């Protein structure tokens, strides 16, 4: 091998590396573009407007046929806030309020249940432990729908769903049905606790700490990431879920819909008015911004949870 061959080889290697990097940039940029097109589409539709005969910008009421609207305005948002839908005034604001209420309460209850079950399964050893884990696994295999229909009958028989005199109780019914099963979704949190060294627990035990104290004083302070992850999942759940809310709250109970049921019903279903598409888009932006910001802000914890979930299933 001559002395000049080495730099040359080096140079060609560098060239290949730059080329492959450039190709990666191009591929990634194209993919990123594809990925954000639907999001951009919704945002553009939300801010679109049409011009009337005297060339003033007014709100649109039609489905957007073109990707780029001809005029922009915030009329859609104004329309949305004053929207009267199916006889309910300020329907969108009510839906937002309902969803916020449900998600805050569910978040607190679910987080408590998930953490307590995960801790028991991970750090305590007792007789019913393995059977309980098998039981939760089997329950997870039934389609959620099967139980959904029966939960609906169950809630209805105790007046927490489809109650004509007190329609507001279906919100309580929804909270119960969201948080009741939460404790069974403990696997990710258990994976997190599993990684915390057992020696912590054992040495505390030698010092005479009760299990309750160990959980409260030693485990919980170390669990900030998993607490935040669990809270994030529980909080965003009601904003994302669609079908449970639709069935439990009922398709005619407009004032107590959550925001996902409401926005879907703007366009489709019994009362659907496809011409409300731009209002729908404005609503999506209103829901999407806080949720997305929350995710971006807590991204680190989310990624940690997801990665743990990958290993634990």
């Amino acid at each position, binding site marked *: 091998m001559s002395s000049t061959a080495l730099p040359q080889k080096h140079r060609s290697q560098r060239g290949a590396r730059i080329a492959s990097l450039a190709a990666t940039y191009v591929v990634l940029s194209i993919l990123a573009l594809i990925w954000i097109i639907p999001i951009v589409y919704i945002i553009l539709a939300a801010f679109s407007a049409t011009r009337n005969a005297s060339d003033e910008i007014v709100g649109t009421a039609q489905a957007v046929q073109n990707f780029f609207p001809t005029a922009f305005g915030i009329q859609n948002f104004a329309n949305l806030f004053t929207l009267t839908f199916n006889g309910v005034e300020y329907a969108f604001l009510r839906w937002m309020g309902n969803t916020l209420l449900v998600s805050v309460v569910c978040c607190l209850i679910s987080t408590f249940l998930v953490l307590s079950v995960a801790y028991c399964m991970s750090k305590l050893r007792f007789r019913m432990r393995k059977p309980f884990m098998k039981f939760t696994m089997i329950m997870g295999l039934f389609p959620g729908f*099967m139980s959904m229909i029966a939960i609906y009958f*169950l809630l209805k028989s105790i007046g927490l769903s489809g109650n004509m005199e007190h329609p507001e109780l279906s919100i309580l019914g929804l909270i119960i049905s969201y948080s009741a099963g939460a404790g069974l979704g403990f696997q990710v949190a258990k994976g997190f606790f599993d990684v915390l060294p057992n020696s912590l627990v054992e040495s505390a035990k030698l010092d005479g700490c009760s299990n309750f104290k160990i959980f409260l004083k030693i485990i919980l302070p170390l669990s900030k990431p998993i607490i935040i992850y669990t809270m994030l999942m529980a909080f965003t759940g009601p904003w994302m879920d669609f079908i449970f809310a639709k069935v439990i709250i009922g398709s005619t109970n407009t004032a107590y819909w959550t925001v996902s049921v409401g926005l879907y019903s703007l366009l489709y279903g019994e009362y659907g008015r496809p011409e409300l598409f731009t209002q729908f888009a404005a609503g999506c932006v209103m829901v999407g911004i806080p949720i997305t910001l929350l995710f971006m802000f807590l991204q680190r914890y989310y990624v940690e949870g997801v990665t743990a979930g990958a290993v634990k299933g």
Partner: protein
Amino acid sequence: MANKVKTVNKRPNWFVRTGRGIKDWFVNFGKRFVDGSIGTKLSHFIFGAGNLYHGQIIKGLLYLVLQAGIIVFMVLCPEVNHTPYGWKALVNLRLGGSEGGEFDPMTGEMTLPSDDKLRLLFGLVTIAVIIIFILLWLSNIKSSYKADMDVKQGKKPTTFVEDLKELLDTRFHLLMLTPTMVAALVFTLLPTIFMICMAFTTYNDFDMNAQGTVLFHWNGFNNFIYMFSGQSQLGVELKARFLPVFGWTIIWAIFATFTCYFGGIILAILINKKGLKGKKVFRTLFILTIAIPQFISLLAVRNLLGTYGPINSMIKAFGWAKDSIGFLGLADGDSEILAKVMVIVVNMWLGIPYTMLMTSGILMNIPADLYEAGTVDGASKTKMFFKITLPYVIFITTPYLISSFVGNINSFNTIFLLTGGGPGYSGYKAGGTDLLVTWLYKLTIENGEYNTGAVIGILTFIITATITLITYTRSKAFNEEDTFQ
């Protein structure tokens, strides 16, 4: 006899172990009755008697109140919506309704017939109450016997405060798991059993009497037989559509799982490439799709690809096609194959960022010496990908692959929000992209065919359970759970 015992000793299989467990249980039970104090003996009949005998007043009273409460509940049969609980609920479990109501001699009027779906539900609740009663009975005997033992060993029986303290320490799991167990039993197990029962009844919305009360009766395995025999109008539809829908569900689950999985790994490798700048920007862009609620992104895509959407307007403007293309099979005459392909493609859009996020962390943790060894041996990059990267990632993410496969079999949102099951669905008829779950939804919620829906639910469960149990119990994460600790 002796022979039998010998063979049993040789092969202690599951049945034998269970049999022995049952025998031991009865022996212990008898021992407790014989050895126990008068209080313990009394506890077999009156709850809490043993505890009261040992001076554990609060505990004893609690047991007593619970026993009295349940007995009152069983005897008095409280009624909700004309449907009784208690022993009457057990009798009502034979179902069949009471057409037109019964004559009430007190008022001289006909009572409303009770609803059969409530009869079934309340019957199940009553059975649950009886099971709780039996558990309480056993627990009260054990508690009393434990106090006996404490006295025998010269200790004082535990006080109520001590019992509570124990709940925070050695029996902490009891305190922590009870809320979840109760909630799961009432809102997960009970509803599931209820729906399983439905599959064996004649319940569909047409079984109503004049007052609008649901009436139905037990129907054995007939609903399962109808699925494949093609009797009645619904039966013909079921027989014709079950296998195609089932087949598509499996094909969908396989494609949806693996396209997202490998797509995600490739994307993760691209983003984590050495020397690439703006990794965070790219990652954030892709995470956007996870952060945005699915109903928003799916409905956005639905409109984007819809008949009057921008993509179709563009295609028409460029003159590539005369009419709108039915990408998502939203109209009846649209191509089924195209709709199926599009659903899988859109699902990649949803699922790839998630796998990317997950595998990014794993990729960075692959021991570098594996690659060094590969380079020394002169392996090419492609070869290293297939021989090192892929096996490593697959090994770690097997549990995720299984749960994601099951999740895709039950993936309701994607299909329902994107295509609604189309093309070509109407009423309970399944469309081209309908999965078993969306069909289940249409049969039950939209068309009131609860019994048939429940049959499909059970079949779905059998499929997912078989796949999961075979793969999951063999995976390392399950068997070697403790090795990480």
